[in-house]
Structure formats: C-alpha cells, structure tokens
C-alpha cells in the first residue's frame, strides 16, 4: 500500500517535471536585428594536425584582419559594433566537425562558420548549416559535392574545388606528354572527389588513368603505395594528398628512386606552405594550380605584407580566401542591416566581386560556387628565388569560366 502510493506520487512528480521542462524551453531570441546584439564569426578548422599550416591559427588572424578592415571602412556607420571571431579545432574528423558545428550555431551563437578544411568534415558542417539555417562559407574544402549533389542554400564554396585543380594541373600535365597516369589518393571525400575530377580531365585531354590507389587518411608511410603505383610503369604518378600527408609522400617519392625511372610526380593540390616545408629544390619545375599567389600582383602583395607583419609568414591562398569570405560576409551584413541568414544570402547571391582574393569573382546564385580567375603556376628553381617565400612563377591565368564547371553541370538542386 505504502509503496503503491509512493509510486503514484513519484510518477506524478515525474510528469509534472516533464511538463514544466517542456513549457519554458526553446531557443531564446532577442527582438533586435542582431541576435544578442553581436555578430559571431566562427573559424572551424585544423588547429593541430596535418592541415594546420595551410589554414589553421593564421586563418583566425586573417579573419580578424577582415573585421578590422570592415570596422575601419564603415566606422560609425557600421550596422553592428560588436563582432567576435572564435576559433575551434575539428582535428580533421567529420564526426567532431559535425558536433562542433552544431555547438557553434546553438551554443556559440555563431552567425557564420568559416574555413573547414577536410571535405568530409565540410560536408558534415554543410548539413548542420542547412539544419540550423545559418551560413557556412567553405574556403579550404575542395569537394565539388558541396556545390553539387549536396549543395544547400546556406553553404557557399569560396576559393576552389577539385574541378579547378584537375582542369589546371591534370589537363596541362597530360597535354605536356604525361599520358599514362597512376593516381594515389587519401581514401576520404576529398581524395575520392579529386580522383574523379582528375580522371575526367585527364581522359578529356587524351590521357589514361591506369590505376587509382587509395591510402588511409591521415597516413605516415606511403612506401608500399608508391611501389605499387610504380609497378604499372606510368608516365605520371598523381598524388591527391594535401598538407602533412603530401609532405610525407613527396619525401618518400624522392627517396624511392621512381624519379630515376623517368616517372614524374604531379601534385593535385599544393599550397605555398608545402613548398616552404620541403624547400623549392624538391619541387622545382612542378606545374600546379594555385587559385591565388601572394606575389601575383601589387594588390595581393600589399595584403601579404600586412599578413606577414601580423603572422610572420606569407599567406597561402586559403588564408586570403578566408579573409575575402569574411570581408564579403561583413559587407553583405552591412547591406542587409541584420545578421538574419536569409537576408544576408539575398545580398550575397549573384554578386560580382573584386577584392584581394577574388578577381572577376562572382558569387553564383545557382549553386553557391564562388567563381574567379585562378593561376597555373610553376615552382621556381632554387637559383631564381629572390626573397623568402618567392617560390612561384605564374605561367598563365585560368579564367573563371574555364576553371570552374558551368552552373548547369554542377548537379545542384538548390532547395533550402
């Protein structure tokens, strides 16, 4: 009897608690044009692993530069005075990126997430952007899925994609005589997507891809994969690795003796930091696609000087891309007068832009790919290097219309 009454009491208490819990909850929101009267730009990237140098902590500084420039430009006329820049490490893992993105939007009050290298992680963040109806400006992740099959209203791809890299590097190397390719790629979204884009570009240019070899990601030892790649006697071994993985692979390639057998190494994605880490002699003469180079013209150079003063290094294209994304986002917020994502997107879509990073840039409304002129570059010979970080010579410009796939071909069905 006693216990029965107790049980009834307990369940009544439980129900009461449950009901009261449900009643008062839900996201709190202010009535103003800006949630919590501030704007939060959240950088989500690799702060400690293999992609740290390519973007990492210096991206946070680049974004702060954009905020400073915005504040200087608009002064008292700025629609928002309190702008925060936060930094979060996703360790290149998609599950961590997924959780962190959700946390940033919900708990961190982030209005926009920037950067996000590692394509698998970026796809997870794009998903969260869609769920939370907040912006995600991807800079460092290259998979075409972000503006293709998995595109959504809240996600923009700012700097480059695998199609651009393949049509620069893959096409040119094939036309220069590297007909038979073997591709080595890291077995995750970026590597898989790169292999697809490169295979298409190489085949179109009259070459063949004999074999595509997946490797774990991230990875230290590439010896077995290189031996396997060399066994089919290709003209070119194309590596689709990036960051720390690329550095390991190039070292091991140079030690393997494949070079002496006349096998050329083509690098799918190379950043200036990679050349800096290994030294120009390791890469001298290599052709590659660079969406932006710090010394390509006076405007880029002036910004790169500021960046050097701020960080002690020259910027990679990812640093400049993040600066551009943050700046254009702030401009759109200024134009919209609110941090409401839909209003900001309306200001971004279809806009034609020229800034430090974007040349002949257009923020395409159809697939949210930000297209712009890129460069085909060649690594200088050690004798030609005139100053620190003077590693590249621009061979030719890749116009936006050639470098990026046409919007109709992207496969993006833009739903909200």
């Amino acid at each position, binding site marked *: 009897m006693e216990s029965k009454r107790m049980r009834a009491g307990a369940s009544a*208490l*439980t129900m009461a608690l*449950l009901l009261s*819990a449900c009643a008062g909850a839900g996201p709190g929101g202010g009535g103003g044009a800006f949630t919590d009267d501030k704007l939060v730009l959240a950088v989500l990237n690799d702060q400690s692993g293999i992609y740290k140098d390519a973007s990492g902590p210096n991206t946070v500084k680049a974004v702060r530069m954009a905020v400073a420039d915005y504040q200087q430009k608009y002064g008292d006329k700025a629609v928002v005075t309190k702008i925060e820049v936060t930094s979060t490490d996703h360790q290149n893992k998609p*599950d961590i990126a997924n959780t962190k993105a959700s946390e940033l939007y919900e708990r961190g009050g982030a209005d926009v997430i920037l950067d996000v290298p590692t394509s698998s992680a970026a*796809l997870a963040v794009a998903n969260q952007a869609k*769920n939370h109806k907040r912006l995600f400006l991807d800079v460092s992740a290259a998979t075409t899925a972000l503006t293709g099959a998995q595109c959504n209203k809240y996600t923009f791809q700012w700097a480059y994609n695998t199609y651009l890299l393949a049509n620069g590097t893959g096409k040119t190397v094939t036309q220069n005589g590297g007909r038979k390719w073997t591709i080595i790629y890291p*077995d*995750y*979204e970026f590597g898989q997507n790169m292999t697809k884009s490169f295979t298409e570009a190489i085949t179109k240019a009259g070459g063949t891809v004999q074999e595509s070899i997946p490797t774990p990601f991230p990875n230290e030892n590439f010896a077995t994969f290189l031996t396997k790649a060399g066994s089919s006697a290709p003209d070119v071994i194309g590596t689709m690795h990036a960051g720390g993985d690329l550095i390991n692979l190039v070292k091991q390639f140079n030690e393997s003796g494949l070079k002496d057998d006349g096998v050329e190494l083509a690098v799918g994605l190379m950043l200036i930091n990679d050349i800096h880490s290994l030294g120009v002699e390791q890469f001298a003469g290599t052709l590659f696609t660079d969406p932006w180079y710090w010394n390509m013209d006076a405007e880029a150079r002036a910004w790169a000087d500021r960046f050097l003063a701020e960080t002690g290094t020259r910027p990679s294209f990812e640093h400049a891309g993040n600066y551009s994304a943050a700046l254009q986002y702030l401009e759109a917020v200024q134009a919209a007068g609110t941090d409401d994502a839909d209003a900001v997107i309306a200001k971004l879509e279809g806009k034609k832009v020229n800034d430090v990073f974007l040349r002949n840039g257009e923020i395409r409304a159809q697939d949210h790919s930000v297209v712009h002129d890129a460069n085909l570059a060649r690594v200088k010979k050690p004798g030609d290097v005139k100053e620190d970080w003077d590693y590249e010579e621009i061979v030719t410009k890749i116009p936006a219309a050639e470098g990026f796939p046409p919007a109709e071909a992207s496969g993006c069905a833009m739903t909200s």
Partner: protein
Amino acid sequence: MTVITEAPADAPAPARTPALRWILPAAGLTAALALPWLVYPPVALDIVALALFAIALDLLLGYTGLLSFGHAAFWGSSAYVTGLIATHYGVPFPLAVLGGAVFAMILALPIGYVSVRRSGIYFAMVTLAFAQMVYFIGYQWSDLTGGENGLQGVPRSFFGIEPVETNSFYFYYAALPILLCGMAAAWRIVHSPFGRVLVSIRDNTPRARALGYDVDRYKTIAFVLSAGLTGLAGGVFAISHGFVALTELHWTTSGDVVLMTVLGGIGTLWGGIVGAFLTVMLADQLASSGFHGIDLITGSVFILVVLLFRRGVWGTVRHQWQRRGSARRP
C-alpha cells in the same frame, strides 16, 4: 582479474531502508530530467547514452567477471544500423534504435559464444580481435558505411513532431525513456535469479558448474544482453548526433567505456552513470576552455582513482555508507 574480485558487487541490501530504495532512483530520475537545463542538451544526451553503455559493460565486468575490450563493435554497429534504417526507411527513430540494438544482439551471439570459452586477459583479447574485424568491415565497406567520410545526415524522424526533430532540447526528452528503459532492464537483470547465477559464476565458477549451471550458456546470454543494451545506447547516440563515424567502432571507444566503468565503480551500476558524467563533463569543460590535452587529464584522473579509490567513485561512497551503517547497528 584481481580488480574485479576486489569490488564488493551487489553488496547485501538489508542495510537499505525502503525509503532509501525509492530516494535513490527518484533522485536519479530528477537529475536525468533536470540535466538538459544544466548542461547543453546534446552533451546531456551523450552523458545518458554513455552511462547506459557503461552500465551494459558493467553487467559483464562487474557482475559476470568478464572484461570485454570489444564493446565498440556493438556500440558502433548498432549506430550504423540505426543510422542506415533511419536514412533509408525514414521510420521514427525509436524503431531505428530498436533495429540497431537487435542487430547488436545478433552480432553478439557468435562473438559471445566463442569468447566466453576463455576468461581474463584471453577473453579481453578475443573480444578486441572481433571488434577490430568489425571495424575493418566498417572501414572497407564504404558504399554502405561511408568509410572515412562517415554516415552523414542521419535524420531524426519522430512522428512528424517538429520540435523533437529539430530541437535537441526536446529530442533529449524523447530519447531519454529509451535509455532509462535500458537502465531499468540492467537493474532487473542484476536483481533477478539469473543475475544471482552470474554473480556466483563470477565468484566461483567451478562451484557454479558443480551446482549444475551451464556456465558458458549463462555467460553467452549475459554477453548478448549486454550487447543489446550497448546497442540501444549506440543507436540513440547516432540519432542524437545525426552522424555515424568510424570512431564509434574504433578500439579507443571500447577503452573509453572501460575507463568510465572503472572510474565510477565496477559492479555498482550507478557507477557507470557517475563515470560517464565525469568523463563527458570533463571533456566538454576542457574543450570549451581551449585546452588540447584532454586525454592527459582524464588519464591522470583514472590513475588517481585506481590508486586511491579502487572501488571507483560510487563504489567508495557506497562502501563508506555501508560501513557507517553496519557500525551503528549492534
């Protein structure tokens, strides 16, 4: 397995008054209901899901005397199966979770059948080996699992009730009953005659066998039940995150849950909750403070607990309580 025999699992209950028997679960329930008010809701759900995971492991470790080092196989495979069911069939998430748990039990049957023939370190190694095999399958079968990319965008269908599907706060209350049912089941198993047999097997296997119990069969059943509860937790975890990654199958996940169980106290059930709470909260606090050496801190805490409180946090508290209780009585 000296650590295990050290723990006074399922200590005699008479010291507890009827009032205490109700106060403890009521306090636990209140805490569970209040949790998403106090901490960020997805983190709160992580705590409860991992608590059930730790309790499920404790069923084997504390009550049957088997240290499984391969429970990530059941946690992870249930997460994948739950995610796949939710993605491809769009059923309400409790159904998908149930599917994941059933799959985990089916998977546990052959693994358990083979593993329980060994004990101690050999049992741990055999379960680890099986878990590694499951991990490898998950990694290689990337058409199904997404490989390194993970299973992205797992939906949270719940009879079209919008707040539950989109807001993690309401989702917590929708998912909590599943996890609480799992915990209640664990409690029921431990306090049933079946649970008594498990304890007797743990304490003196030859004697249990001499009494006529089919020891291997009992162990296998315990293993499968533990895997099922683990599967429930893993499935809820997958739905909560909307994502399944290879991490869930990785051996470090097996290690983490052992750590939680030992931290809280082996053979106590409540210890799993304490262990999960401490570990998740510690990781969350450290992560938001921008500190990168999380494993360093949790590792140090673990060492301290093992050296100073061998019964774990909850085990030590209960031990002190009982000692005081028995001292007062003549």
